[in-house]
């Protein structure tokens, strides 16, 4: 899968970095033009199969013990064996924590972004706090939240929300603020009030950037959920991890990690799909 067809053959030898960048740009342009699905899905699948093959080869040839590093078959065997017992309900619990935490995070992020965007005073007051909130180590606040809120879902929601909201806010504020100043002026001469400019111009043009933030946040959501469960829980994939690891039940650990990964990818793909639906114009022939 070389992106060669796009790279200009006659151009003077570019630096490897520039070449890579242009290849990436070409690949992205191709994806936009509607590459068939199989061409987008095939490369990662091939890579996955390769990794799995090497993994199994190492485990089998090296006679690695299952509790140190389980073979792929054993991970899946453990997954199916434990699915109805613990994994299904644990996945469901963690999924809810991720989803609701993410939704709370989006709500808070949107409100804060609009506040920061619409007033310089609020920007000065809120932005430093937002950045400060990211310096607080989640490992530390997890147990504190567990003490305050107990083992229920609420401390997990808070941790997921805290882990997710920063990339959403930063990208949304950037997106809202990066509208062409001439366009804002056009809106003023077309009788656009500030609110009209916000909702007819700034919000729509910030959407692609907003979705970039959401996709980054989607990667943090499962991490936040697992941290929350580490701090104190009775169910969830983080709970499974914390139980299975000291028991050297390594294949179950891997099965739980696999489920987390799959949820993360599904969330990411869902957001990419939503972005396509919401901003069909994005990246199209901008001049």
């Amino acid at each position, binding site marked *: 899968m070389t992106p060669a067809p796009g790279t200009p053959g006659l151009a003077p030898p570019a630096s490897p970095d520039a070449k890579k960048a242009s290849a990436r740009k070409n690949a992205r342009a191709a994806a936009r033009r509607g590459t068939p699905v199989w061409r987008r899905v095939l490369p990662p699948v091939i890579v996955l199969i390769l990794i799995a093959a090497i993994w199994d080869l190492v485990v089998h040839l090296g006679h690695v013990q299952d509790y140190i590093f389980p073979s792929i078959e054993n991970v899946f065997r453990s997954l199916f064996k434990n699915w109805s017992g613990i994994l299904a309900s644990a996945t469901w619990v963690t999924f809810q924590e991720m989803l609701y935490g993410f939704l709370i995070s989006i709500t808070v992020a949107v409100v804060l972004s609009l506040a920061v965007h619409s007033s310089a005073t609020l920007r000065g007051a809120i932005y430093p706090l937002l950045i400060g909130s990211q310096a607080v180590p989640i490992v530390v606040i997890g147990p504190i939240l567990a003490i305050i809120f107990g083992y229920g879902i609420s401390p997990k929601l808070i941790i997921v929300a805290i882990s997710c909201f920063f990339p959403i806010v930063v990208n949304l504020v950037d997106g809202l603020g990066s509208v062409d100043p001439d366009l804002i*002026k*056009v809106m*003023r*001469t*077309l*009788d656009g009030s500030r609110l009209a400019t916000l909702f*007819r111009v700034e919000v*729509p043009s910030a959407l692609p950037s907003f979705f970039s933030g959401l996709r980054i946040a989607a990667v943090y959501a499962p991490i936040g959920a697992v941290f929350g469960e580490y701090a104190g829980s009775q169910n969830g994939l983080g709970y499974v991890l914390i139980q299975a690891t000291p028991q050297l039940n390594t294949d179950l650990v891997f099965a739980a990690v696999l489920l987390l990964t799959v949820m993360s990818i599904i969330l990411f793909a869902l957001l990419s799909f939503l972005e396509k639906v919401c901003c069909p*114009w994005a990246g199209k022939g901008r001049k």
Partner: protein
Amino acid sequence: MTSTAGSPAQEPEAGIRLEEVGRAFGPTVAVSGVSLTMPLHGHLSIIGPSGCGKSTLLNIISGLDDPDEGTVEVLGATTPDDRLRRCAWMPQRDLLLPWRDVLGNAALALENQGMHRKAARSQVTGLVKRFGLSSFERKLPHQLSGGMRQRVSFLRTLVAGKEVLLLDEPFGALDSITRADLQFWLRSALLEEPRTTVLVTHDVEEALLLGDEVVVMSARPGRVAARYATSFPAGASRRELLRLAEFTELRDELLARLEEAS
């Protein structure tokens, strides 16, 4: 200049009047001492070397900006907000909203004025048709050519229903063939629309084709260096105009003035 002879008090038909207007950005004096009057429904072209403050002047007239010195009056309005209410401004780049189709972009001002989306769209349909864009009504900007986008942009400006149109190098970003095409198209569109128009350009032919008066500005700090009236037959085609002796003489004169200015 309060004692200007021959203009008693406030004539109701006043168009645009600038008196000793100056504007500086930090140490850069963009324009200084610009005095300029034009009648209601007049079509004024302003040419000048790039960087001489043409856009600054247009921004000041529109009310998007206010001068440091001097006074501005647009159809009787002197405060920036009142001027904004009378002026529509079209910049060089089309700046259409990429998520709105042609109708949606054209209807933007009506929606801003409080009209419902559907009503606004149906109201502009007629104008879209008149401008030869009816088969593109539902196309998004990225599906249009540069010339068409600029036409939609002009349409959007027109729909705002302002008495004054301020066009800042509206065709500067287009290739020469499309530009020639659109210049002529705009000439006929403006003849049908009796609006006060100020066009900024650095293209002499464009200034002559689209203005009934042409003002030449000097290099920065921009001042009014010369002013010419044009009167070419309204029905003439572009090629006929370009062959007219008066046209070519004036063009050469303007080019010479422009060279002096820069």
